Structure formats: structure tokens, C-alpha cells
């Protein structure tokens, strides 16, 4: 089993590098812009030929934009299910893009810090990704990429409604800022509902690891804006940078400190049970592994563990996912085989560490 993406599975990926401001709690910052090209129907009304033409129009713009000269193109339609899932696990494409049909591609930078999905829900979904809280860096890059593409593409833009999108929920700026947070202490103390309520009050959505419609795996949560019309990109970004994220981070940190002070044994028990299970399990699902890895990650950050290094842990979060596991193993595995292989992989990584 070999394919164009074999090497990709071995890299850590931008969003799990575990660096950047507030990286102990803020895993990654992602921004996407939804764009459509004037003169083409939106995707629900685009037949195969039109979709192909859209791909070629974007390809030609990418080729002419020097800022995008390092972006590689992967033909998502030509990939098998495993490779598509690999890209979803790395957050380079969405589940919807993976499961779609017809001509569709993704362009991405080799560092995976930016990418462009073509023919997802809109003609273009441009995204930038950074580890930790780096909203400004993510915005600067995506703004520049958008300008570079716009120089060669005629975007569908309306003087009243802004950038036009297939779904009216994205119209206007077409921006979605998503910040992924690791909130194990708030989850352990059942305080997450308060975060959810506060987010809803600010018209923000709280989602699981892979965005829309996914559950919260391993205490990871994505906070993202819902409103795209009537507020500028800068105003939306300001809310995240100055209000929402600092508040949640402070809340998680305070809860961790409170646990350390008042329930140190309960906290240690969670952390060390997680270590015990990860080092000894013979069959483990990705869901279960994510949960224990989450507790170990918290253990590292509150100073209750020091014999596991953060890069190893961050790699594990990604490499235990089903598609990565199979890619690294070199062959396709059934559900039970994956659980066996995953358990062995984790044991090996944690024991040699």
C-alpha cells in the first residue's frame, strides 16, 4: 500500500506542533474564507463539467499567484477512502469535502499552514492554520492569500451582502475563525456547560474536534464565530483575541489550579490511571486513547508528570487516528486489528520515551 500521501502521515502537522502562545490550552487557530467565482453557479447547481471548469479556473489562478507557488495540489476525487480520511484527520480537508462527489481538489502548503479546498460547499474555501493562539498571523496570511487569488479570479461580491456564498449563513465576510481548545479540567468538573452558554451568548458555536457535527474527542473543543454579515473581519477577530479566548483559558487554568489545590489525589488518579492504561492496554479505540492522552497532556502541563515529552504526546494524538494508524502500519486493518495495533503503537512510544 503506497500512495502520494504516505510521507504526509509521518509529519507532525501544523496544528499539533504544540507551540505558540497559550499552547498549553489553545491547540490551534484556524481561519477560513468562503469564496465563489462570478459567472459560475453555486455547487448545488454545478454539473460535472462546470465543477471541472471551476477546478481549472482556480488551478490557473494558483499557478499565476507567486504567493501560492509552493502549494501542492491533491486530487481529492482520485484518492481512495483511506487517503481522504488521512487529510480529514490532518484538518486539510473537511469530512464534507472528503465525502463529496465529482471534480474537487485541495491545494496546500507543504508545511500544512494553509490550504484551499476547491468545490466543497463553496467554490473556494481558503484556510490558514497555526498552533497555539495566533489569530493575527493566521489572518495576515489568509488575507494575503485571498488578495493573491483575487488578482486572478473574479469573486462573486455584492455591494450590500459582501462575498456571496452558497449558504446565507456564511455570506458577508465568509470568515470562520475556529480556535481549538483543550479543556480537560473544565470537563472533569462539569463546568463546560457554562463555557457553552457564554459562547452562545456571544453568538459563537462550540463544536468537537473535526468541526460541524462532530463530538468532543479527548476534551478538545472548537469555538467559532457564527455571524459573518455586518461585522468586519477585524471586529470578529478582536472578540476572539481580546475577550472570548483569554476568558476561557483563564477559566481552565483556574480550574486546574483549584483541582491541584483541593483535589490533588483525584487529579493524580486521573493522570496516573491514564498512564497505566496507555502503557498496558492490549486493545484500545481511538476515542478511549484520546481521552487518556488528554489526561496525560493535562498532567504534563500542571507539572504532575515529567517523563513524557510533549512532541511525542502531540504526535500520538494524530497518529492513533484510524487513517494515520493504517498508513504508518502500511496496510489496511479491520476495526479490531486497529485497536490491537493502536495499543501496541502507544505502548512502544511511551516505553521508549
Amino acid at each position, binding site marked *: 500500500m503506497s500512495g502520494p500521501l504516505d510521507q504526509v502521515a509521518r509529519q507532525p502537522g501544523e496544528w499539533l506542533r504544540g507551540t505558540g502562545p497559550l499552547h498549553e490550552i489553545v491547540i490551534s487557530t484556524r481561519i477560513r474564507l468562503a469564496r465563489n467565482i462570478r459567472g459560475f453557479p*453555486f455547487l448545488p447547481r454545478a454539473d460535472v463539467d462546470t465543477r471541472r471548469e471551476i477546478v481549472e479556473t482556480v488551478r490557473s489562478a494558483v499557478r499565476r499567484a507567486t504567493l501560492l507557488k509552493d502549494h501542492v495540489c491533491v486530487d481529492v476525487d482520485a484518492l481512495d477512502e483511506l487517503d481522504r480520511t488521512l487529510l480529514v484527520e490532518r484538518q486539510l480537508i473537511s469530512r464534507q469535502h472528503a465525502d463529496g462527489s465529482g471534480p474537487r481538489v485541495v491545494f496546500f502548503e507543504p508545511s500544512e499552514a494553509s490550504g484551499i479546498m476547491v468545490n466543497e460547499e463553496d467554490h473556494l474555501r481558503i484556510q490558514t492554520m497555526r498552533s497555539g493562539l495566533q489569530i493575527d498571523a493566521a489572518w495576515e496570511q489568509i488575507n494575503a492569500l485571498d488578495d493573491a487569488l483575487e488578482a486572478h479570479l473574479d469573486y462573486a461580491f455584492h455591494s450590500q451582502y459582501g462575498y*456571496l456564498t452558497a449558504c446565507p449563513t456564511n455570506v458577508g465576510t465568509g470568515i470562520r475563525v475556529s480556535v481549538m481548545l483543550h479543556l480537560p479540567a473544565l470537563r472533569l468538573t462539569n463546568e463546560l456547560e457554562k463555557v457553552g452558554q457564554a459562547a452562545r451568548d456571544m453568538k459563537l458555536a462550540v463544536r468537537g474536534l473535526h468541526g460541524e457535527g462532530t463530538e468532543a474527542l479527548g476534551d478538545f473543543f472548537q469555538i467559532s464565530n457564527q455571524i459573518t454579515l455586518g461585522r468586519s473581519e477585524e471586529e470578529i477577530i478582536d472578540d476572539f483575541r481580546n475577550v472570548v479566548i483569554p476568558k476561557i483559558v483563564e477559566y481552565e487554568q483556574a480550574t486546574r489550579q483549584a483541582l491541584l489545590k483541593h483535589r490533588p489525589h483525584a487529579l493524580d488518579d486521573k493522570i496516573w490511571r491514564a498512564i497505566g492504561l496507555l502503557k498496558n492496554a492490549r486493545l484500545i479505540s481511538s476515542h478511549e486513547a484520546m481521552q487518556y492522552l488528554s489526561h496525560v497532556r493535562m498532567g504534563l502541563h500542571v507539572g504532575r508528570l515529567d517523563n513524557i515529552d510533549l512532541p511525542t504526546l502531540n504526535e500520538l494524538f494524530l497518529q492513533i487516528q484510524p487513517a494515520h494508524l493504517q498508513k504508518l502500519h502500511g496496510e489496511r486493518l479491520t476495526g479490531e486489528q486497529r485497536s490491537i495495533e493502536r495499543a501496541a503503537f502507544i505502548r512502544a512510544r511511551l516505553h521508549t520515551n
Partner: protein
Amino acid sequence: MGLCERCKKAQATFHLTNIDRSGNKTERHLCDRCAGEEGLLHTGKPTLDVDELLQNFISTSKSGGVDLSSLVCDQCGISYVEFRNQGLLGCPHDYDVFKEPLTRLLERTHGATQHEGKVPKSLDAARKPQRDIRRLKRQLEEAVAGEDYERAAKLRDRIRELENS
């Protein structure tokens, strides 16, 4: 903040004021746990299904005089009913064809009907001052609402500057 009137141990975080028909007021102050045990908290997670709300909104909307079911885009051929069922529009022109019902829908989902922010470079230069003024005026309203008068004064000066330039 006082203690829970029921267990008298934890902080009271739940405050209920009940006013009956004859206007008599009774107050209760409980901690989360006691409020839960008395069945005063919603135990299930609040669910807010945006898609469903949107769906309900679209299907109940009646436009003044315009029969929404007869609206069809002359460019992509999508009808308002199809859009209503799938939630996605057929082409950029739909925003003009369905303008009336869409404007109300956008007002509901975004609380606004006028774009603010980035504009393609080719259209940008001419409109920038007006956009800046609009944005600053909104920030001014926010500053006043938040009683941040120092910021409000600065914003007011900036708006005057732009309006006179």
C-alpha cells in the same frame, strides 16, 4: 452572596423570584445541587438547532404580497422552495431574486443586512471612507452603551475628521 437556604453549606447560585397572581413575591436562594434536586434546573443540555430554526423560519415566512412559492431564479432555475428545502442557493444572482425574503432571513441569522469588512481590491478605493464611517459609528454606539466615554469621544472625533475630509 449568601448560602443556600436548603443545605446551608454551599454558595447560593440559583435565585428564583416568584410572583403569584395577587402580586405576592417569594424568593428562593439555592446552590446548584439543591436547585437540581428540587427539579428547578433543566437537566438536559439546551439544544439549539440552527438548521431547524432556519428551516422553520423560511417555511413560515410570508412576504408582503409576493408569493414565495412562485419565486424562481431566471439564471440557475432554482426556486425559493428548493432553496428552502436544501438550505443552499443555486447561484450568486439568487441573492437579488430572493432579496426580500432573504433580507429578513439574514436579519434573523446575522442581526444585520449590510456587509462590513473586506472588499475586493478592484472595488475598494472608492468606498472606503463611507465604510470606515459606518464601522466607527457602530463602535461609537457600542462604546456609549458600554459607558466607555473616553473611547466614545475619540471615535466621535475620528468620525468628524472623516466626514469633513
